[in-house]
C-alpha cells in the first residue's frame, strides 16, 4: 500500500480520515442523510478527474446516447439519472471501457482521465479498469469465499501487498461489512444476503484501490435498509474516491450526490428509433430546485418517467 504512485497516497487523505464521523462502525439506517448536511458544492469541480466532452456512443450505426459533456470531480458523488433507455448505464460503462466488450460499440468525442485520453491508442483497457472500478446493478460475487472475493483484484492485478489479510480487512471495513463477516471470511460469498453481497462487491472493487468507482444502480435489487447502508457507505467513500452512480431513484440522487446529470430519451424522426441524450448537468441542489431545462423539470416533478 506504500506505492507512491497510488492515487490514494495523497496528503489530503489523512484529513479526510479525521472528518469521518465517530459513529462510523455502526452505520445508521434510513433517515440519516450525511451528505446533505451543510455541504457546499462549488459551482464547478475543483479537481476534474474525468472530463467528458461532447461524447456520443454508438452500437453499430445506432446512437445509444449522445450529448455527453460532464466533469467528474475528485471526492464528489455525481449521479446520472433519467428514465429507462436513456443511455445512462451505457455512458457509465464508457468511463472504464467496459463497452469495449460489446461487439460494435464505439464512441465519438473525448473522454479524458486526469489529462490522458481514455481512448488513446496506447491506453490499455486493463489498466483503465484498475484505476476506474465498477460495481454492477445485480450483486455479482464470484463463487468463492468472502476472503477470496476481496483478494481477487489485488491478486490478478499483481498488486504488491505486504499482507493480504490487511487489505481484505481494510476493504471490508470501508464497505461497512467487516463487523458482519469477520468471523466467516472463509465462508462462501453466496451465503450472504443481497445487501451484504453488494457491499462485498464494493469491497472487492475498492480493494484494488481505484481512483474512481462507477456504480450502476447498485441499490436497485436491494431493500430499503440495505440501500440506506450502502448510501451511507458511499458518502463515506466519497471522502477518498470519486464516485459516479447511475440511479433510477431520484430521491437517492438527491440524498447522496453533489452533482447530477439528467438524461432523457429522444425519438429520431427519420428512423423512429429511441436514443438517449444528456440534457443537463449541474449541482444536485440546482437540478432538484431550479433546473434550467423544461424536460428536467418535468421529470423531477414526476410528470413522466
Amino acid at each position, binding site marked *: 500500500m506504500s506505492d507512491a504512485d497510488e492515487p490514494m497516497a495523497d496528503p489530503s487523505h489523512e484529513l479526510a480520515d479525521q472528518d469521518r464521523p465517530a459513529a462510523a462502525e455502526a452505520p445508521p439506517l434510513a433517515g440519516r442523510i450525511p451528505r446533505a448536511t451543510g455541504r457546499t458544492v462549488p459551482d464547478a469541480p475543483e479537481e476534474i478527474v474525468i472530463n467528458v466532452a461532447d461524447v456520443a456512443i454508438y452500437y453499430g450505426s445506432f446512437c445509444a446516447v449522445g450529448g455527453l459533456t460532464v466533469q467528474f470531480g475528485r471526492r464528489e458523488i455525481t449521479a446520472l439519472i433519467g428514465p429507462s433507455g436513456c443511455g445512462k448505464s451505457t455512458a457509465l460503462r464508457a468511463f472504464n471501457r467496459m463497452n469495449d466488450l460489446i*461487439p460494435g460499440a464505439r464512441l465519438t468525442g473525448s473522454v479524458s482521465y486526469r489529462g490522458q485520453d481514455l481512448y488513446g491508442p496506447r491506453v490499455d483497457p486493463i489498466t483503465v479498469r*484498475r484505476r476506474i472500478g465498477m460495481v*454492477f446493478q445485480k450483486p*455479482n460475487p464470484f*463463487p468463492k469465499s468472502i476472503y477470496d472475493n476481496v483478494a*481477487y*483484484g489485488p491478486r490478478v492485478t499483481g498488486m504488491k501487498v505486504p499482507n493480504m489479510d490487511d487489505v481484505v480487512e481494510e476493504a471490508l471495513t470501508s464497505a461497512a461489512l467487516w463487523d458482519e463477516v469477520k468471523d466467516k471470511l472463509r465462508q462462501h460469498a453466496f451465503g450472504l444476503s443481497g445487501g451484504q453481497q453488494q457491499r462485498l462487491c464494493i469491497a472487492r*472493487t475498492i480493494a484494488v484501490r481505484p481512483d474512481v468507482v462507477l456504480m450502476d444502480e447498485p441499490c436497485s435489487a436491494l431493500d430499503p435498509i440495505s440501500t440506506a447502508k450502502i448510501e451511507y457507505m458511499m458518502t463515506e467513500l466519497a471522502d477518498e474516491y470519486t464516485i459516479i452512480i447511475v440511479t433510477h431513484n431520484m430521491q437517492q440522487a438527491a440524498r447522496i450526490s453533489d452533482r447530477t446529470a439528467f438524461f432523457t430519451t429522444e425519438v429520431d424522426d427519420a428512423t423512429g428509433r429511441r436514443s438517449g441524450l444528456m440534457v443537463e448537468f449541474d449541482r444536485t441542489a440546482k437540478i432538484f430546485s431550479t433546473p434550467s431545462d423544461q424536460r428536467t423539470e418535468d421529470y423531477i416533478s414526476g410528470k413522466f418517467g
Partner: protein
Amino acid sequence: MTAEVEPPGRSVEYQIETVRGSIRDATFRLAMFFSIGVAIAALGTLLVQVFVDALPRLNLDLLTQFPASLPALAGARSAIIGSIWVIGATALFTIPLGVAAAIYMEVFADPRRWYNRMIEVNIQNLAAVPSIVYGILGLGLLARAAHLGQTVLTAALTLTLLVLPVVIIVSREAMRAIPSSIRDASLALGATEQQTVWRHTLPLAVPGIATGIILALSRAIGEAAPLLLLGGLAYVTFTPTGLDSRFTVLPIQIFNWVSRPQEEFRTLAAAAIVVLLALLLVMNSIAILIRNHYRRTW
C-alpha cells in the same frame, strides 16, 4: 332464506369447478407416459435379449483370451484393451483441442467477422457428418497420405476428428451458461481476458465440458464404421504396445463375430456387446459423478 336468492358463487359465470380440464390434463399425461414407455420397452427388450444370448459366454475367458478360430477358446482381450487404448488416445487429443477451440469461439471470436461465422456454421455441419465419411478421411489422409498406417494413432486421430465438433459445441454451451456478470466483474477489477478464462470461465464450465467430452467419447467407443474402413482388423492376437501398434476394438470384433456362421460366435458377440455396454455405463457414470460433484447454482 328465500329460494330466489342464489349464493353468489353458484351462477354459471362464476363457476370454477369443471371436469373437462382435468380429463384433458390426464389424457395429455397418459400420452406422454406412453411415449416414454415405448422408448424404455424397446431398450429393455434389447438389453434382455443380449443378456440372454450372452449368458453362456459371460465368463473370465471372455476378458482374458485372444480371438481364436475355435469359438470355445476365443475371447475379446485384444479388442477390450484396444478399445481402451484408442479411446484414451482420442481423449488425449480431443480434450485440449476441443476446449481451446471452444474458448476461442466463445471468448475471443468477434461474431460479426465473416470468418468466425463461417467457422461456427461449419462446426455445426461437421457434427452432423456421418462417421463413415471420417473413416474415408482417416484412411486417405492419415493412414495413406501421412503414412501412419493402420495403427492406434490413426484410429485415435480419426475418432478425434469425428467427436471434435460435438466437444466444441458442448464446451461452448457450458461456457455460455456461466453468467456474464462473472466475466464482467473479473474484467472490471482489472483482470485480463486470459486470467478471467483460467480463473472463472474454465473452472465453472468443467462440469458441462467434462460431461460433454465423456458423452462424446462414449459415442466414439461404439463406432465401428470409420475404423472398419481403416483396416478392419478383426483377428488380432496381441494387445497394443504403443500408438504405432496395430489394433482391434470391440465394435469391430463384435461385427466380425456376428458375421460368422457358427452359433457359438454369435453368443460370443453378444457377450462382447455386454462388455461394451459395461464400458459405456462406467463412462457415463463418471460423467454423472463429475456433474454432481461440481454442480453449482447461481
